């Protein structure tokens, strides 16, 4: 995949050199980029009517303009990075990379979330720092490791330099190009990326044979033993498999500096520091793992990330905010063992005791959440992941999952896995020395 990307880059350079004017892009977006019909089984019409903002109604012209902008490389500093660089329609509007690569081959800290059904989210980004798609769209364009533009004025200036855009903006918005309207148009296009119509949706609509027996068992585990439903909520009014809330499920704690960083941030807060000082710290250190805390500066948000929806997961791999998990089996293994321990772990994350067969059933259920346009792609990915899961399970820890060891088991064990301070302190406490 990486090679492919490099080749694409080279081709782009060749293309740019060969043309006198900078083109919008080298290739057409393709059929999967088209606005989606709302005539889909499971489409939540009521919810849809609530989420279209009154100050930015959907019109065909605005959507077309947004689409053009979404796929226009010229929105970036070097003219090579468009929105779809990281939100590729053929990859479920993600880049299928652990973390995204932006301008000048720089990697960010987080996995690119899908655009599909993003219109229904109550906040945007993994940490929810944008309230709307409009707010969201403005940020990557100006992010130095994403699209690298220096300021909104620079973006507006660049767009104004392209005559056809001037005309379209005047037609759609009745005024000169401005940064807010650029964001409005992009958001309108994004609001057409609706993905339901999956076998599961047909199953819930009454077609009992739309999904396999294994998937039906998986749905039952999803609601019961797996405890998935409490956060990845589904109901006919809001059938998105997310509570849109922020939870520390122990993903950040994979990294050994997570707890020291969190403690440092809390200490600074306790001394009465301003949120700006935390922001500064976040930039100077690798504090991305603190997640929602960086937005709210509230202790209970440390390491919390937004619950993501579960539709079309087999085209949006890898998983979690850092893209650290390759397969759905790895992801479920992570939950099954009760996450990675850290002092801020959500109390709802506990060992689940799922068997191998139950995990397979859960994956079968998740696979049934695939929309028709991604069916073939998802099938291929499922086969790959399935094959890999038979031999390679880096997150599997059956004993922990069954509560047979560690902090959860008869051995008592330490509270916080590989990152707790307990280990080094043990030798210092005289009451703990001696023994056999």
């Amino acid at each position, binding site marked *: 995949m990486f090679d492919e990307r490099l080749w694409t880059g080279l081709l782009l350079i060749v293309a740019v050199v060969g043309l006198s004017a900078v083109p919008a892009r080298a290739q057409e977006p393709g059929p999967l980029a088209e606005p989606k019909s709302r005539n889909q089984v499971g489409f939540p019409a009521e919810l849809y009517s609530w989420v279209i903002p009154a100050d930015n109604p959907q019109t065909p012209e605005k959507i077309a303009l947004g689409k053009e902008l979404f796929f226009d490389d010229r929105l970036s500093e070097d003219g090579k990075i468009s929105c779809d660089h990281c939100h590729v329609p053929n990859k479920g509007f993600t880049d299928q990379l652990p973390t995204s690569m932006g301008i000048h081959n720089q990697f960010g800290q987080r996995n690119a979330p899908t655009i599909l059904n993003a219109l229904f989210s109550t906040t945007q980004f993994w940490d929810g720092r944008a309230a709307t798609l409009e707010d969201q769209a403005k940020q990557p364009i100006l992010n130095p490791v994403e699209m690298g533009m220096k300021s909104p004025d620079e973006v507006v200036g660049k767009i104004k330099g392209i005559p056809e855009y001037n005309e379209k903006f005047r037609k759609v918005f009745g005024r000169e190009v401005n940064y807010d309207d650029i964001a409005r148009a992009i958001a309108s296009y994004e609001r057409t990326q609706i993905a339901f119509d999956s076998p599961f949706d047909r199953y819930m609509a009454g077609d009992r044979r739309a999904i396999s027996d294994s998937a039906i068992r998986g749905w039952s585990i999803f*609601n*019961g*033993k797996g*405890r998935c*439903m*409490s956060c990845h*909520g*589904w*109901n006919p009014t809001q059938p998105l498999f997310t*509570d849109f809330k922020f939870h520390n499920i122990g993903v950040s704690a994979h990294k050994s500096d997570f707890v020291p960083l969190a403690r440092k941030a809390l200490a600074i807060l306790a001394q009465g520091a301003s949120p700006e000082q935390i922001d500064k710290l976040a930039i100077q250190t690798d504090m991305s793992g603190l997640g929602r805390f960086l937005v709210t500066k509230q202790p209970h948000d440390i390491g919390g990330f937004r619950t993501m929806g579960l539709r079309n997961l087999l085209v949006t791999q890898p998983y979690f905010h850092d893209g650290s998990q390759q397969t759905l089996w790895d992801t479920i293994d992570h939950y099954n063992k009760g996450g990675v321990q850290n002092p801020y772990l959500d109390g709802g994350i506990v060992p689940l005791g799922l068997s191998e067969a139950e995990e397979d059933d859960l994956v079968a259920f998740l696979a049934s959440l695939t929309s028709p346009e991604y069916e073939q792609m998802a099938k291929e990915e499922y086969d790959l992941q399935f094959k890999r899961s038979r031999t390679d399970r880096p997150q599997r820890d059956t004993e922990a999952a069954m509560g047979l060891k560690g902090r959860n088991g008869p051995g008592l064990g330490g509270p916080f896995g590989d990152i707790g301070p307990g280990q080094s302190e043990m030798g210092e406490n005289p009451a703990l020395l001696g023994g056999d």
Partner: protein
Amino acid sequence: MSFKPNQTVGAATAAAAILSAIVILPAALRAQQAPPAHPVPPPKNGGTVVMLCDGKTSIEIKSLKPGEQPTESQGREVANELMAEWRKEHPDEHWQMAQADAGAKPHADPMSQASKSPPATGQQQGDTYASFTSRDYKVWQAETQKFVDEGKRIFHDWKALGGTIGVSCDMCHPDGANTHPETYPKYQVQLQRVALLRDMIDWCIENPVKGKTLDPNDPKLRALEAYIYAQRKGVPLDYGKH
């Protein structure tokens, strides 16, 4: 001091609960499963014998073989025949008055009548289904209380509930506090759907209690529901409240 009565009542009911939990309740549950039946005389002509609800008058429907379901018109015909039979045997009596005489008493304030002499027959607005003696009320109350007490026992006993980690309901819900049965049905975020009280009982059994969920018809689940509702007597229903 306002707490004194509570103390006495609390101690008495708790002691009663402990005793009854051991001795009386299994019998009570058996009684529930097998309600008392009026024995019906055997058919003489290979048909089906049907009895009137006075427990005495019966006729045989020859065209209906044992195990067969009567049609609606057959049913009506049988009812008419039975009533005709009853009138034949009681030519001077009025059906409704006769049944009321079996022990009529008013609906209101049933227990206040307990120490007085029974009211004279035929003087109430009695009919078959509303003429009950104070004993009837006592029986109902006792049966209801046993059901509730059985729920109380399970509510306080993690083993009876099928728990595996020593957690019982009362550990988080003393006297059933914070179970708010009056707020169901409501959207329950742990389940991400609209739930009834019994759904949430099952959720608690599966999660904090670490036991196996109970079937909606399981006597334990029904008893738990009974206890929880009983704790909120007098609280207005307020479905959907959060």
